[in-house]
């Protein structure tokens, strides 16, 4: 009981703070939409070309804006000098991890929803399909659970902002590849039976990443 209320307390605090300042959401959103617009002008795609390159564009924008967002998971705690205060609370490290991951997932999904809307308007592609939503949710989950871990690692590293792009990207790449492949099939009008293998792969990665991150986190956050 108290475990969940403490997890939610961490997530809640981050969400209140973010909704007040909109620091992450606004900067990430501007960035993501910029990427989409630039691609739009670079390719001036027609409908045939578009269905081929759309998955790539979406996921490039997704990955880079996701990294921007995840960089703000633990670094603000350090900058505000609150990390120690968090660490002396009578809760397990896993509680903090889960709370942070839930908060980040919330921000990421919010940004993605707006990003997908912008994408749909700019490129006239039907992105809001059930298949696509499932893929986005699964990918975001995997992205956030590993990203939160690396974001904690970054806090105790000198080149903080570099940790995520350099160490986290290679690890998350298989998930992104699965997401790109699966969404390409969705945009090509394929059915569930065609994409199901990729979806299973996403689920498998999520499960592995959740378990590993949850176990490793307490060691990472300790200096």
């Amino acid at each position, binding site marked *: 009981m*108290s475990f969940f209320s403490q997890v939610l307390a961490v997530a809640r605090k981050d969400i209140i703070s973010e909704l007040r300042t909109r620091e992450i959401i606004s900067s990430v959103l501007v960035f993501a939409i910029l990427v989409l617009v630039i691609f739009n002008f670079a390719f001036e795609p027609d409908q045939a070309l578009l269905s081929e390159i759309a998955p790539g564009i979406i996921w490039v924008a997704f990955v880079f804006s996701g990294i921007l967002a995840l960089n703000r998971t633990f670094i603000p705690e350090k900058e*505000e000098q609150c990390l120690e205060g968090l*660490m002396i609370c*009578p809760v397990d490290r896993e509680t903090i991890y889960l709370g942070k991951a839930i908060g980040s997932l919330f921000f990421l999904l919010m940004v993605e929803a707006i990003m997908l809307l912008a994408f749909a308007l700019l490129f006239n592609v039907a992105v809001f399909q059930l298949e696509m939503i499932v893929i986005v949710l699964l990918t975001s989950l995997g992205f956030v659970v590993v990203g939160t871990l690396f974001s904690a690692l970054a806090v105790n590293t000198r080149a903080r902002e570099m940790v995520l792009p350099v160490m986290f990207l290679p690890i998350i790449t298989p998930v992104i590849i699965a997401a790109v492949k699966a969404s390409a099939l969705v945009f090509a009008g394929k059915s569930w039976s065609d994409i199901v293998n990729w979806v299973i792969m996403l689920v498998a990665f999520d499960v592995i990443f959740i378990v590993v991150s949850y176990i490793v986190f307490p060691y990472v956050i300790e200096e």
Partner: protein
Amino acid sequence: MSNKIISAAEYAVETFDLAKSFGSYRALRGVNLQVQQGLALAILGPNGAGKTTLIKLLSGIMRPSKGRIMIDGLDSRENSLEVRERLGLVAHQSYLYSNLSAEENLDFYARMYGVPNRQNRVSDVLKLVGLDMRRHDRFSTFSRGMQQRLSLARALLHEPSLLLLDEPETGLDQQGLDAIWSILKSEGEKRTIIFSSHNFERALSMCDGVVILAHGRIVFQERACNLDMQSLRHKYLEYTQTVTL
């Protein structure tokens, strides 16, 4: 509010051969400290003596390189969650979030500490530190003295049996000092207090015991009732070889 927050263990704090090194530098070199339940202890010592390091070790922010800490008879490593529940800490940093209001900050920590009757307790501590009029204001708009008072409110929120304070006087004006010390005076009746300070007068008037730390060791330890200002100054000079004002 319960008055029974003091535990049955004889000592609130016991350390055994406690040591902390930073690289090759030995900041604490074998500290054996015993503090009886309900007492107030002042830690004095020159800059770099290891006062902050000792408080960080006691609060669990840092891990000792060597030695053991018992809080209320519990080993701080083996029972870290129970020990953390019993501790309140006022450090140099406030551990409060600048974008949240005073009330939201305390509410967050109250949830983390599983404080019963959360809203009432938050209101009570805000009144205690005289900030209930500013409860909806963001922490970033607070003056240094108000920040320090809110930090004290955060540390008292869960009725800790042991309150640790690292130089709580830093940056406060006379009014702020009086406010903090009068709160500590009344709160100190219910719990054990350990604070580091450079203020001898305050140490003598507030505390039951005084410890002088120098070069990472306890060099002097005495009950406050056996000391006056002059003898304390004299001892301090003798053991630390530093001139004080």
